[in-house]
């Protein structure tokens, strides 16, 4: 499975962090409406924490809207955005968020934020500004809750031996697709990565939703026919319950 890059050079050079993730498996049943994941660990006392949750790389086909005849906004064609993560959520500490907002070159070089996604993405388009188009893509994904920067979620406590403890609750969206997600935890000091660790989180449909998904993909026509039958029966049952006025 392919995930976003951005850390290969430092993985060997930086200290590995001790981090606990609970739970590391999300079971999405019929009543699933988003989930919370607790991340806890220790980082050097003089560093700041950034948590990044990413999905596997996917290709998207999108309609591009533009102005036609100078006045009308409409779909003007199809754009392909390839090799972008299906989920990209950043949970920065306040200090890290300030650095992200400032957009310093040293930060961009770390390749931890959205600029890393743009760098890796392949946008199939001839004439337009790719970064402007990518910004629109991020806006679209942010609207679905699958991309975003979630602030004020990292909390610190004093630790021992030059370390401090952090905790964070990651609120995962209700529209989270089934799959394996990569959780990266970075300790950042002076615009450089001082510590790093990576964990995997699996989101898995169970029970009725799992059965329905499998049925819908493996027996599409039968699934459609059954969906129609259930709808008709529901309509008829309601009709019978409401039987009040007679035919003329």
């Amino acid at each position, binding site marked *: 499975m392919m995930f976003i890059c951005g850390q290969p050079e430092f993985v060997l050079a930086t200290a590995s962090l001790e981090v606990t993730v609970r739970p590391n498996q999300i079971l999405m049943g019929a009543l699933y409406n988003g989930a919370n994941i607790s991340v806890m660990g220790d980082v050097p006392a003089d560093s700041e924490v950034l948590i990044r949750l990413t999905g596997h790389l996917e290709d998207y086909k999108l309609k*591009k809207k533009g102005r036609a005849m100078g006045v009308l906004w409409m779909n003007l064609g199809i754009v392909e955005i390839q090799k972008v993560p299906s989920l990209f959520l950043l949970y920065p500490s306040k200090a890290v968020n300030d650095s992200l907002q400032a957009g310093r070159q040293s930060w961009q070089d770390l390749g931890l934020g959205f600029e890393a996604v743009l760098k890796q993405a392949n946008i199939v388009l001839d004439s337009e500004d790719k970064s402007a188009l990518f910004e*629109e893509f991020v806006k679209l994904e942010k*609207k679905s809750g699958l991309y975003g920067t979630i602030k004020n979620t990292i909390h610190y406590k004093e630790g021992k031996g030059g370390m401090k403890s952090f905790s964070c609750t990651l609120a995962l969206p209700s529209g989270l697709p089934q799959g394996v997600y990569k959780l990266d935890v970075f300790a950042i000091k002076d615009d450089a990565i001082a510590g790093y660790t990576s964990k995997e989180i699996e989101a898995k449909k169970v029970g009725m939703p799992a059965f329905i998904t499998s049925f819908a993909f493996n027996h599409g026509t039968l699934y*459609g026919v059954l969906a129609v039958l259930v709808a008709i029966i529901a309509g008829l049952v309601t009709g019978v319950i409401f039987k009040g006025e007679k035919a003329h």
Partner: protein
Amino acid sequence: MGGFVGLLSGIFGVGGGFLMTPLLIMIGIPPTVAAASDSNQIVGASTSGTLAHYRLGNVEFKMGILLLIGGVAGGTVGVQFIKILRHMGNADFLIQITYVIMLGFVGIYMFVESLQGLRVSKSTEVVAVPKKESKYAMILKKLPWQTNFEKSGTELSIVLPLVLGVFVGILAAIMGVGGGFIMVPVMVYLLRMPMHVVVGTSLFQILFTCINVTIMQANTNHTVDFVLALILLIGSTLGAQMGAKISRRLKGEQLKIILASLVLIVMVKMLMGLLLKPEILLAFVGGH
């Protein structure tokens, strides 16, 4: 949401897809899933609504079946036509412009006509003047295979509903909608059916259109979310029953004027969408 859209469906004989799909997208459902699941729930709402209207004597089955046959043929032609348009480019432009013009024309005509109808019915001194038969009525009488449509109280050639069904089918395929919004005015003005019978017959026809769409979407795109449709169904089937009862209590002209207002609101919304810069300049392929 399901209850509200079902209510509209039962009152006016429209599927409600024009309202439900955007509402589902607004709460975060992907456009393709929203459109397909919506058509699944419309099957339930229109079954419930058709049954309620059948009990009230408002379903003209013969007319519904003829329109349906024409609609299927027209839909097939329309799908091919849209393929050619897409190949030529600017298909979306044509679709949206057709939508705005059609809705604008139909909405304004219905609104003005029903307003005049309401004014006439309010005046107490109406002098009965024998009406001169219009050219349209004379042409209708000359068409072959005249058949009696009992519920509507009219005699018409079966050619007319077949041809109009084809026309609506083509437009519905081009616009990507069920066609209730076009079918209702066509039945009222061109087939001259009473408004209450139009509502019941339109629902009967929508039922089959949405059965077809649901199975096609489930088979080709796997975008029908059954759980979502089921949740919406609970509200919409109840809403459709209540809508049918409300519809019976309203006068034909009142029904027309409210529907005309709804059509005009949708038209204005679409026009604004064409004129104002969208918040996001990209959209997932497959939305309405």
